[in-house]
């Protein structure tokens, strides 16, 4: 491959990583604590592309000189190669994530992905590191993960009776659910979506069956001791459900 082509691939990568930041879709893919790596990568890819594009200007200068002197064979990294048949298609592989990322509308993991994984409901078990329970937020601002951590530290579901909560998540439902129940779910992501683990609480709501799968909703209500699949756990009895857009940070980061 010519240095110009390699330079353009590097520019494309820089542009792709930049677009993740500028379009706000980066957190559909990775934990926010690694966002700085994406910023650094934009700069790195850009610098490397400049390294390649620099040769274009210099090649011209070299050629001019060579005509006069022809002293030494020009040795540039770019023109002896590396051009085995395998490396000739290397650009396709590298451009594949760029093309998919720019052409396919970005969407965070949802109910479909939750259905193929083991969902952690009611209590956390091994889903997140122990000791996190000391970090639980005050009741009024607790998110789904905070509540599950709280449930973990208190074996009696009745201890949460009548505690009010307002929670954000997407609707998940499968054949185990009766018409007046659904699961309010979110994914927790510790590194990138490859390790995404769905968590959720059971919500009691008369018109649960009318809520479309995957719809993001804000649920207000209060917990009452209940059970799901024979397991005792607090169930959120909803008093109001408002459909919302997909939040900017769809996953929870433990």
């Amino acid at each position, binding site marked *: *491959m010519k240095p110009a082509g*390699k*330079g353009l*691939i*590097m520019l494309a*990568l820089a542009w792709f*990583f930049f677009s993740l930041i500028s379009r706000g879709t*980066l957190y*559909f*893919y*990775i934990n926010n604590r*690694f966002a700085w*790596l*994406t910023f*650094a*990568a934009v700069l*790195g*890819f850009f*610098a*490397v592309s*400049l*390294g390649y594009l*620099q*040769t274009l200007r*210099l*090649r011209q200068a*070299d050629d001019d000189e060579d005509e006069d002197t022809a002293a*030494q064979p*020009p*040795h*540039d*990294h*770019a023109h002896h190669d*590396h051009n085995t048949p395998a*490396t000739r*298609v*290397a*650009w396709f*592989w*590298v451009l594949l*994530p760029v093309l*998919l*990322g720019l052409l*396919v509308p*970005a*969407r*965070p*993991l949802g109910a*479909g*992905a939750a259905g*193929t994984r*083991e969902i952690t409901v009611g209590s956390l078990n091994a889903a997140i*590191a122990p000791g996190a329970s000391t970090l639980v937020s005050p009741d009024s601002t607790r998110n789904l993960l905070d509540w599950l951590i709280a449930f973990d530290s208190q074996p009696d579901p009745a201890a949460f009776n009548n505690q009010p909560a307002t929670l954000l998540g997407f609707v998940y439902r499968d054949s185990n659910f009766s018409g007046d129940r659904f699961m309010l779910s979110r994914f927790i992501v510790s*590194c*990138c*979506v*490859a*390790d*995404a*683990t769905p968590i959720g609480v059971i919500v009691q709501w008369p018109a649960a069956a009318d809520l479309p799968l995957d719809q993001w909703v804000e649920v207000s209500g209060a917990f009452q001791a209940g059970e799901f699949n024979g397991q005792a756990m607090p169930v959120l009895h909803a008093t109001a459900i408002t459909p919302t857009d997909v939040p900017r940070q769809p996953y929870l980061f433990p």
Partner: protein
Amino acid sequence: MTIALLLERLQTFITIFLGIFIEAAPFLLAGSLVSGFIELFLNRDTLLRFTPRRALPAALLGTGLGLIFPVCECGVVPVTRRLYQKGLPMPIGIAFLLAAPVINPVVIASTWAAFGWGPILWGRVGFTFIIALLIGLMFQRATAAETFTPAVSGQITASCTHSHAPAATSGGRIGAALRHAGDDFLDMARYLVIGSLLAAAMQTLVPQAVLLAIGSNPVTSVLAMLLLAFVLSICSTVDAFVALAFAGIFTPASILVFLVFGPMVDIKSSAMFLGVFRPRKVAYLIALPALMALLLGLFLNLNAGGWR
């Protein structure tokens, strides 16, 4: 399966694939940049003046050399070859070849990012150290003539071995280092892309029940991860993120085997070994780490209570 369900799966597949790539690419780029700048700015003759000749200190030095040359398993092969051409003692080069792709700051950082401080991180570094040291010592009596390909002393084919001395004519050493980094990145990124595709496909297509059956068994999980490490050929700077995808399903010891064996030997590095070593030695360099990693995984799974 309905069309809608199929599209849903496809979307999940793409999201997971991109997630792995976006998380991993900055690490691969960092490794490539370091290797590019080493290539142009480090004087190997100075380094060789300080290398011990006796086997044990030499092998020990080799295992730690990755801290100075932070290269992944692709970059390590041409660097090793060049060091051997300058008369490096045998055990240093072998230990360096096997250990440097793990025992270096970039890989330790990415393993930490994926798994945090814990048994996976120190187990990876510790067992890599032991295996590389042992194999380095085993090679101490091997002579250069029986170990290296005839091509190693002359002009070599496997990878980027040309002199970079005339880089001055192509516009500054920094530009040349950046281009070297870019070439390294482009060469290796496809292994990352293919590895991410396979990992994402496995997560979305293979039923969890099948994976759980293979991955929870103390013997099959180790064999499967050994094979997977060899086949996937993922760069060691990013393999921790791919391993993370298996972490909930496969036994922890099998994840460790993946992270220890994969950087030492895989399809692409085996091919590159053939450009340096005679086929017989390449066979040793594949079989010895595989055997040691296999024994390690089986021992941890069968005797150390699943090792968590």
